[in-house]
């Protein structure tokens, strides 16, 4: 076996050498091929750098591109909109109120060459942006009243809301404050001011917004206290409105009561009075026919009622009833034989 190999080896060696050479050539071509092409993604742009010096225009078109292998290299940059997020800053407003302002911005690399030269990469750009945007925002906030930062230009306050605010001291003043710039205007101004400084970095600042405006902690507590006080005042107002209205209803009830009762009493008296008058008229009409007899008749009628049980009465012996105890009386009347029973006789006597 060993002899066989040794015998055939020159032929085999030739074949192997050819194959290896082919492989090597293929690898070299592949290397050159890879080194002379590059792809640019949709989200990318690039600069070709030859020994450190930029060559040609930035490449922005996505797809397959060619370059001189090994001596040119590709520096890639993001083509998309990039985020910048500042740290929340404590800034005093024009009204000396300390607030914490958190801004967020959107930017993109528009001139990769300038970008590369001035800030190198995205981290460098973020640093520059931190410096510029923080200071611009700070300047603007410090020159603006809090209401202008919070509200927008089209701020308006309804009559009803104003009326409600009247209950709380100082509230109306806050609400009535005219908004001259407003948040949108402020932000726009920040944007234009900051944009001016961007071109030197090859950056376009697309958008900047105030993400959050908050009171710093100590102020926040005071605001909460103010809100609590305001709520309590409103609660108090409700309660006193309630008891006021209740008292009003009670008063009304009492008035109605008095009216109803007094009207009824008046009407009752009128009815009674009319009846009494009517009765008097009836009595007068009839009794007037013989007042003397009426007096006699009515007096007799009243004795049984007026003189009750166990009443002691002292009567003169001369009285009509008792005079017969003493004497028989005059004899104008016929003899007792005729008797007291004879009504017919006495009727004749006037």
């Amino acid at each position: 076996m060993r002899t066989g190999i040794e015998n055939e080896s020159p032929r085999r060696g030739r074949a192997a050498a050819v194959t290896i050479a082919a492989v090597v050539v293929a690898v070299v071509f592949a290397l050159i091929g890879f080194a002379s092409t590059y792809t640019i993604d949709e989200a990318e742009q690039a600069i070709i750098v030859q020994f450190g010096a930029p060559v040609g225009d930035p490449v922005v078109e996505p797809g397959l591109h060619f370059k001189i292998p090994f001596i040119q290299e590709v520096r890639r940059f993001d083509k998309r909109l990039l985020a910048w997020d500042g740290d929340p800053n404590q800034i005093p407003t024009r009204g000396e109120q300390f607030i914490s302002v958190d801004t967020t911005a959107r930017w993109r690399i528009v001139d990769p060459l300038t970008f590369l030269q001035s800030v190198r990469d995205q981290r460098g750009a973020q640093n520059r942006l931190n410096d510029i945007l923080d200071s611009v925002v700070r300047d603007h906030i410090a020159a603006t009243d809090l209401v202008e930062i919070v509200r927008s230009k089209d701020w308006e306050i309804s009559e009803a809301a104003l009326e409600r605010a009247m209950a709380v001291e100082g509230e109306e003043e806050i609400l009535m404050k005219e908004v001259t710039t407003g948040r949108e205007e402020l932000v726009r101004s920040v944007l234009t001011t900051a944009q001016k400084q961007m071109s030197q970095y090859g950056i376009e600042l697309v958008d900047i917004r105030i993400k959050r405006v908050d009171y710093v902690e100590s102020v926040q507590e005071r605001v909460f206290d103010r809100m609590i006080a305001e709520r309590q005042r409103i609660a108090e107002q409700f309660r006193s409105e309630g008891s006021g209205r209740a008292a009003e209803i009670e008063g009304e009830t009492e008035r109605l009561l008095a009216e109803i009762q007094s009207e009824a009493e008046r009407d009752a008296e009128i009815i009674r009075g009319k009846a009494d008058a009517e009765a008097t008229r009836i009595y007068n009409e009839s009794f007037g026919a013989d007042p003397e007899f009426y007096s006699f008749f009515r007096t007799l009628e009243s004795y049984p009622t007026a003189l009750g049980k166990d009443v002691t009465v002292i009567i003169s012996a001369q009285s009509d009833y008792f005079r017969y105890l003493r004497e028989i009386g005059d004899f104008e009347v016929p003899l007792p034989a005729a008797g007291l029973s004879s009504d017919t006789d006495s009727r004749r006597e006037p």
Partner: protein
Amino acid sequence: MARRRYEQSPMDEFLSQFDARTGWLVLMVTAVVIALAGLLTSVYTVQPEGQAIVKRFGKVIAIKEPGLHFKLPFRIDRQYFVPTARVLKHEFGFRTASTDEPTAYRKSPQHQDESLMLTGDLKVIDVEWVVQYRVVDPDQYLHRVEDVDKTLRDISEAVMRRIVGNSLGSDVLTEKRVQVSSQARDELQQILDSFEMGVRIGTVELQDVTPPDPVKPAFNEVNQAEQEKESLINEAEKRRNQVIPKASGEARKLIESAQGYAAQRVNRADGEVARFSAILQEYRNAPAVTRRRLYLEMIDEVLPRLGHVYVMEEGQTGPIPLLNLDRSPAARPPATR
């Protein structure tokens, strides 16, 4: 022989074992592997909830619908899936912790920072909201904005704070909720369109809108006070409704009884008058006797019921007791006229 052996290097050793057959074998295997890899990397599926962006050397060449698709192999063509049919959402001021029944929500101090904001009357309010959106342009969605989620969150917060900052806290708590959310939706959409982000905002929904925690008890106190007010008024009205009908009834009773009295009075007058007239007529026939009879009838009735009747003789000082119904000796002081 010795010379050849001398020339034997490791390379020669390797080459000496290399024959055409094994060479072919290696070549074949390599070719098959490459072909297989090519086949595998040229087929892909797109899931039903989205679309795929196909890029050739980084350039977008197609957008594919769900299904099985082919492409150039070896990462020449690459596909990127974007869930365009799915409704995506971001939560602000809270997070859904689990979707088990019942859904659990979480609110940490960090989320609190998201939701606490200033209102136009410089108060503080806690607004939680949800943004629902869909990707409508997968090309833009992938290639125009670096961090889509962060941008969406940042802009949402900025927009919501601007709108709430331009409203009264009490309005946001009550009647302006709908207005705030639709305004936020429109504004957010407009800004994201200017970024060419390729999303459509479905809804911006306000969730819990409350006063900040330390102030909540005071807000509850107001509600309570409002109810107290109502109940005080109701109580007073209830009392009025109880008292007034009763008083009206009593008033009617008073009038009725007065009318009763009136009827009685007139009727009695009529009756008495009738009787008197009748007697008077008879009396006129025999006045003296009638008079005396009436008198005596009265005496009959009155005298027996009396206690003591003293009959006084004219000029005498002592009365003569006619009847002494109590048996005790008469020790009274003499009555004088």
